[in-house]
């Protein structure tokens, strides 16, 4: 039964899977850029710059993803910017997730010993050089496992595209469920397809977290 539904709708399932992976990677790319920018704003020596970073992060972390996405799907096109469902979903996902990634990056940077910054600065490096060559390379090890978890969240949250006709896995799953009337089986297949992406990622991040936090302890 399960196999037959999967085989009959193989094309739709695969298209959905492709859109889900695609939108997640696309979002991740922009989230990393935006998230790092706002993380750097949040730790900037100037107070008013920090406030700007803080407002962005706190605002988007405390508003539902669905509200942000629907805003881009319903309101923005009426303001004269035509957006497809997929585009609205991708923008919503990116803005929402970038706030979480900013927090992850900030925590990573701040976990680097402040003595590193002082030492680099007193050796004549500028603030930007120190960030680029001294602080960020050390922070990356601490940032990668939680970043991986954010990517898993991104894959799961991309199901919000089903609200805006974004052709992702959840959207196609609903379509197949309502065509075949086999809701239970179809959703089970959709679940397995999500798990194929998220489970290996999740175990890999747990492994990296153990390994890298282990190596940090050894160095001490």
């Amino acid at each position, binding site marked *: 039964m399960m196999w037959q539904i999967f085989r009959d709708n193989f094309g739709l399932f695969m298209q959905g899977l492709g859109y889900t992976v695609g939108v997640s990677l696309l979002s991740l790319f922009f989230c990393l850029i935006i998230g790092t920018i706002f993380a750097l704003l949040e730790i900037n020596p100037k107070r008013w710059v920090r406030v700007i970073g803080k407002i962005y992060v706190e605002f988007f972390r*405390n508003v539902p993803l669905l509200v942000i996405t629907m805003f881009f799907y319903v309101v923005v096109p009426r303001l004269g910017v035509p957006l497809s469902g997929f585009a609205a979903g991708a923008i919503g996902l990116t803005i929402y997730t970038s706030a979480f990634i900013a927090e992850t990056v900030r925590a990573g940077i701040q976990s680097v010993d402040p003595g590193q910054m002082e030492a680099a600065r007193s050796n004549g490096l500028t603030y930007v050089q120190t960030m680029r060559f001294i602080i960020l390379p050390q922070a990356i090890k601490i940032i990668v496992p939680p970043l991986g978890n954010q990517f898993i969240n991104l894959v799961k949250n991309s199901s919000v595209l089903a609200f805006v006709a974004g052709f992702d896995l*959840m959207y196609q799953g609903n379509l197949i469920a309502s065509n075949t009337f086999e809701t239970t089986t179809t959703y089970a297949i959709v679940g397995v397809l999500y*798990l194929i992406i998220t489970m290996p990622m999740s175990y890999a991040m747990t492994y990296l977290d153990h390994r890298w936090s282990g190596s940090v302890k050894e160095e001490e």
Partner: protein
Amino acid sequence: MGDFAGAYQWMNIRFLLEGLQVTLILSAVSIVFSFLIGAVFGLLRYMKIPGLSVIVGLIIDIIRNLPLLLILFFTYFGLPNIGIRLNALPAAIVAMTIFESMMLAEIFRGGIQAVDPGQMEAARSNGLSYGQAMYHIILPQAIKKMIPAIVSQLISLVKDTSLATIIVLPELMYHGQVLYGQNSNYMIPVFVALTVMYFVVCYALSLLSKYLDHRLAA
């Protein structure tokens, strides 16, 4: 599309507040159930009981790695197919509880594991039973470590209740959609109101987290 005065007449605000009430009820009930089930599952996974803990761990990992929206569809549209028919609110509560309890279970396990194992050994060699050591020594220390993670999970839970709009649960997001569906001039004001209402609830929770963190650290 920006008729703020019309959109914010009392009738509409009251309509949104009724939605907020459903959102809060759904959140509160799901939180209570998730806490209880999450604590049990987290402990079972931590205790490494042969066989059982592996199965519990697998269930936790599977559910944590699925989208909540899928679980919601499953409880509302999938279960009737195998003879279990739930109304929108119970279906939403069941879905939220399944998902959030497993997220909390992992937080509980992580918190307990973060307590120095020497604490358990010391308590046991002082004559406390495993249950006593867990209840009086380990859990109080673990709770302190868990609070920030628990609260941010609760914030996620409140935000995620908005997904229940897709099964026509009359919560805040759904009532918002009904309002701007009636009059497209209400669109922007309604989105502003939705944002403010969700933000106030979630931000209050995050302030609570900071306060507790501060109090307990001292």
